[in-house]
């Protein structure tokens, strides 16, 4: 188990190899996740999501630099997990987020890993959470997770991240788009990027109005109202870096709010519960597969195919001893 020890001590080659093991769901990868679990839970996980072309990668490039420099003390260890889609046809992928992260590639305190979705549909890679666990245990205090270009329903990031940044760009739709359920709902910090574009101010006004409506809808007691997180809207231009410092401050403010209001505990509890349920689902499915009589299974399949039984009815028969 030398690899795990080396990775936990910060050896970059070991971290990188371990990330592959975890991503490939190998026996060693599983064992590493078990062993490293106790050392995790230290890192702040920041999600960055938004439509493709809104400037997520360019913004992450700036943000990683800004966040790696605390107000005082030594530079922070920052990891970036950049997710791009796998082809539904070939299973291959072209992972291009590094193109926009040129400034980060050779810094000793920053580690970037590109991941393909490998069939996951929620905007993250199947193993993004596991990868974050490895990086957390390897001593990265801050992990930025960039999702695939996300539209309306790729909201898995809100479950993984403590703070979710939703990046929009001008020209992405009217105020009805902004009122729809989905990605805007998960924002802890909302960004209008490309603030140098002429219609950026209009886009910011539309989103601002949507946030105000949302705030008025909450019928909470005054005490609850005071404790509620007010989603800030930040305008940035990732190309020249303007607004990035404001974004950093907004993220830090949300992290401080989480700590002060028990939000961290709440998020971690929800994640622990999801992880336990997922492990149960995987385990029970494997158990079911192991105990399966191939003859009965084929028969059930034929029955479903011929529409003699619904899938649920066929399963019921299979489960009968």
């Amino acid at each position, binding site marked *: 188990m030398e690899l795990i020890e080396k990775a936990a001590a910060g050896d970059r080659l070991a971290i990188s190899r371990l990330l592959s093991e975890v*991503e490939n*769901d*190998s026996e060693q990868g599983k064992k590493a996740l078990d062993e490293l679990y106790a050392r995790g839970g230290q890192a702040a996980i920041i999600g960055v999501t938004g439509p493709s072309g809104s400037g997520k990668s360019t913004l992450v490039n700036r943000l990683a630099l800004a966040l790696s420099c605390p107000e005082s003390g030594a530079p922070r260890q920052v990891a970036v997990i950049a997710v791009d889609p796998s082809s539904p046809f070939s299973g291959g992928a072209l992972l291009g987020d*590094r193109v926009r992260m*040129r400034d980060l590639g*050779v810094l000793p305190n920053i580690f970037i890993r*590109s991941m393909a979705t*490998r069939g996951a549909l929620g905007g993250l890679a199947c193993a993004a959470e596991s990868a974050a666990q490895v990086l957390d245990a390897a001593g990265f205090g801050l992990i930025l997770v960039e999702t695939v270009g996300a539209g309306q329903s790729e909201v898995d990031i809100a479950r993984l991240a403590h703070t979710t940044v939703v990046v929009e760009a001008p020209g992405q739709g009217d105020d009805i788009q902004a009122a729809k359920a989905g990605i805007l709902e998960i924002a802890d910090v909302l960004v209008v990027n490309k603030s140098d574009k002429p219609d950026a101010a209009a886009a910011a006004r539309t989103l601002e109005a949507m946030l105000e409506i949302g705030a008025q809808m909450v019928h909470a007691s005054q005490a609850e109202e005071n404790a509620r997180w007010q989603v800030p809207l930040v305008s940035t231009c990732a190309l020249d870096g303007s607004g990035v410092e404001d974004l950093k401050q907004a993220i830090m403010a949300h992290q401080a709010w989480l700590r002060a209001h028990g939000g961290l505990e709440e998020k971690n509890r929800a994640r622990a519960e999801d992880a336990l349920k997922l492990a149960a689902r995987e385990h029970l499915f494997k158990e079911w597969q192991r105990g399966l009589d191939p003859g009965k299974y084929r028969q059930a399949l034929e029955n479903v195919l011929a529409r003699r039984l619904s899938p649920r009815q066929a399963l019921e028969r299979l489960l009968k001893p």
Partner: protein
Amino acid sequence: MPEKRIRVLIAKPGLDGHDRGAKVVARALRDAGMEVIYTGLRQTPEMIASAALQEDVDAVGLSILSGAHMSLVPRVLELMKANGQGGTLVFVGGIIPQEDARALLQMGISAVYGPGTATTRVIDDLRSALVAVG
């Protein structure tokens, strides 16, 4: 689909701005089911070695049309070796005179592909060299 896939870094070291060849190869490898990490133009050998390390790739493809291959390629190999990735497959594409190609192969480059190479050849070469990883 949590299964092992061939991961390849496609990089353009040096100062020439012609990345069509690199993009064609990247796209072909993607369509062959590989995960391709594309770094973009004007990468230093340090950036390439660092990307190869962080991405734990099975192979690195260097596209060079500037004529600087005899200084850039050995530097990339040297840095990768220092990072503990001396065993990783490195191939070169571009306009490389034959005697240079021979010298590069002697340095440990797995293949040198000139203009007009069929992308299927690159794919086949990678697959057979990396048969162990799948």
